[in-house]
């Protein structure tokens, strides 16, 4: 689509800050972003206070921590894990078992600290499994993490005293043993707890990228051989990075345990592992904030779209493939590409071409939806002969017309979109050439 964009990421800004000795403007900018983030989070439940919204916000908070921890591996360490949910699930189990002990009066631990218990439990496991799996990166690593996930899932049924069989383990978060003046009976109280842990975790993971270990994780990702010749053992760097990622996944799992008061073996299986992978990649792995975007965006779609259609997973998969093929840097990458144009105040030059592409894009998308929904209706609904309704229009799925309409929308929309995409490309080239000429 659009190439030759330089990746001036947050890291490079860090570098600039060094040169200019932490300029006041840079600090103000970062403080502004963080403050805005906090204020919005605090205000959200005041604006949207339905049960649905609260449950969604809680899930988003958990997903943000989980996705960022996943990106500590993929984006920062170059390690593609197909089993990261192992640490999410085990963190959840760690926390819920501690909660059960608190419920039984065997332990006195503040409810607020349960996620930490989950994190520590996951980190211990992460260190052991990380040591085994990170000797080699890339493909062997991907397969081993997947194998470990499958192994734990398979063993969960055999070890009911830990995993609780099919029902899982349940606890009661209303323990009266709390640090804050909350009882965690209401979901808004849980929201604030998740919020605190989320901000602590996000800040910690951000700062970790700036530490020697964080920097060396990037170095090993880029070139593990070179890293050896500057004194580092790539296996150790990966193991430590893996342990830290497991720790934060465990915290996310602990938050899950508090939020749902229940953890099952499904939480550590392939499904949540692939979910978080796709979320993170769609958000973008080359920028620190990418996974945050992905977590918010996908959690939102997941809840809203799966309410109206059974085909959510299919749309999710299509979206993922599209991102991989045409926008490998994810949503964050798409946004950051516009930075030079934004700085040069040239956004108006490309927006018209976007609008021109939007219309056929929507037509094409409508075509896909019509076809998918018809097929799903035929293959999956209890009575395929019953009328299907899309956006208020009701019809028989077996009739000829809906198929024709769907194919027509898809074909015409697709063709026009292709033309429009060329225009977008052209607009980009012109603008970039202009900027270059002016030497901005």
């Amino acid at each position, binding site marked *: 689509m659009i190439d030759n964009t330089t990746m001036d990421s947050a890291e490079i800004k860090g570098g600039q800050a060094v040169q200019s000795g932490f300029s006041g403007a840079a600090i103000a900018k970062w403080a502004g972003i963080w403050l805005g983030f906090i204020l919005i989070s605090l205000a959200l439940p005041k604006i949207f206070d339905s049960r649905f919204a609260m449950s969604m916000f809680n899930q988003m908070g958990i997903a943000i921590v989980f996705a960022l921890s996943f990106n500590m591996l*993929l984006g920062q360490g*170059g390690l*593609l894990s*197909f089993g990261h949910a192992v640490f999410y699930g085990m963190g959840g189990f760690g926390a819920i078992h501690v909660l059960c002990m608190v419920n039984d009066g065997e332990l006195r631990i503040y409810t607020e600290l349960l996620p930490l218990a989950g994190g520590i439990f996951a980190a211990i496991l992460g260190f052991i499994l990380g040591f*085994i*799996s990170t*000797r*080699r*990166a*890339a*493909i*062997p690593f*991907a*397969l*081993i993490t*997947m*194998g*470990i996930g*499958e*192994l734990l899932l*398979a*063993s969960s049924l*055999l*070890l*009911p*005293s*830990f995993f609780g069989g099919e029902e899982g383990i349940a606890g009661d978060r209303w323990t009266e043993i709390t640090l804050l003046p909350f009882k965690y009976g209401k979901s808004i109280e849980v929201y604030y707890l998740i919020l605190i842990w989320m901000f602590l975790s996000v800040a910690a993971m951000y700062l970790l990228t700036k530490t020697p270990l964080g920097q060396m994780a990037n170095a090993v990702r880029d070139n593990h051989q070179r890293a050896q010749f500057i004194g580092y053992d790539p296996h150790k760097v990966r193991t430590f990075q893996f342990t830290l990622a497991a720790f934060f996944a465990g915290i996310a799992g602990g938050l899950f345990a508090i939020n749902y008061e229940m953890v099952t073996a499904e939480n550590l299986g*392939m499904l949540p592992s*692939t979910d978080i*992978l*796709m979320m993170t*990649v769609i958000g973008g792995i080359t920028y620190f904030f990418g996974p945050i975007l992905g977590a918010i965006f996908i959690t939102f779609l997941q809840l809203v779209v799966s309410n109206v259609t059974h*085909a959510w*997973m*299919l749309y*999710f*998969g*299509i979206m*993922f*493939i599209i991102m*991989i*093929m045409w926008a*490998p840097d994810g949503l964050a990458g798409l946004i950051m590409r516009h930075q030079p144009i934004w700085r040069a105040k040239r956004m108006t030059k490309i927006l018209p071409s976007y609008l021109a592409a939007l219309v056929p894009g929507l037509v094409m998308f409508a075509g896909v939806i019509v076809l*998918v929904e018809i*097929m*799903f209706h035929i*293959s*999956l609904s209890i009575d395929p002969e019953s009328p299907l309704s899309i956006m208020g229009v009701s019809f028989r799925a077996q009739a000829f017309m809906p198929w024709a309409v769907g194919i027509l929308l898809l074909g015409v929309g697709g063709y026009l979109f292709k033309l429009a995409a060329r225009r977008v490309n052209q607009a980009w080239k012109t603008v970039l050439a202009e900027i270059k000429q002016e030497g901005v």
Partner: protein
Amino acid sequence: MSEFIIFSLLNTLIYGLLLFMLSSGLTLIFGLMNVLNFAHASFYMLGAYFAYQVSIHVGFIPALFLAPLGVGILGMIVERYGLRKVHAHGHVAELLFTFGLFFLFNELVILIWGRNPVDYQIPDFLDFPLFTLFGADFSAYKGFMLLISIAMFIGMYLVINRTRIGLVIQASLTHPEMVNVLGHNVPAVFMYVFGAGAALAGLAGVIGGNFLVTEPGMAMALGPIVFVVIVVGGMGSLTGAFISSLFLAGLQTFAVGMDYSLADFLGHFGIQASSEGFWGDIVRIEIANTRAMIPFLFMIFMLIFRPKGLMGVREE
């Protein structure tokens, strides 16, 4: 006892050759292109579904040829219009792409054929006992599966050892840098090998789908085990894939028949294991119940003690 051993051996052979049909294609693609095709088991699944669809209309024998062909063509399309494009974004992107395909194929199969298993049956003309041993039947279809697997195995052996393209593939397995000197037609070779690997997986689906069950979960059920096979065998080694296919099949098949547990073992020494809590769970586990775990356990041990696999030639 000898009945158990003989039938287990036969089942091992059938299951092992089925695994090899999948893992050989995966190994070839990996060896040649350095791409782990995550969607490989999806081609197996598609093979079964295609065969089901074809056999409804024109019968099993045409399906035996048409379904792998269809899957092979699909594989070539995937390579030509997908993988090749993603290749520029690097290794992780390729892996993510094939993973995305795995995900998408699963959803597409559900979209077209539904969530429930489809009625893909063993053809009538093969549905009789071939011979009876110790009072147990050995079905003709199992014999047929063996025959197809062995034919495939011989065919592949000949292609790899007796043809020019086979020699090129062999060379590139042990010396990946050789791929650069293949000449100007590298992309075409990649496309055909990818297609051939997919077709092999499709064939496995055709003969395995009706023997086992044809449902949307079948790729997920077999995929991880095939990955274990190539890790244990050594990434990029065909011989290794063959040995570990049979070996893992044997482990799993024989495990099914064993109801021995740690508690029984301790019992021999007069030790009464506690039956409470976590340790109670552990000592009560019977070997048969660990069938699903065995491949992964084995893989982890392998990685600790011999990280490059049984026949591994590559370090990293």
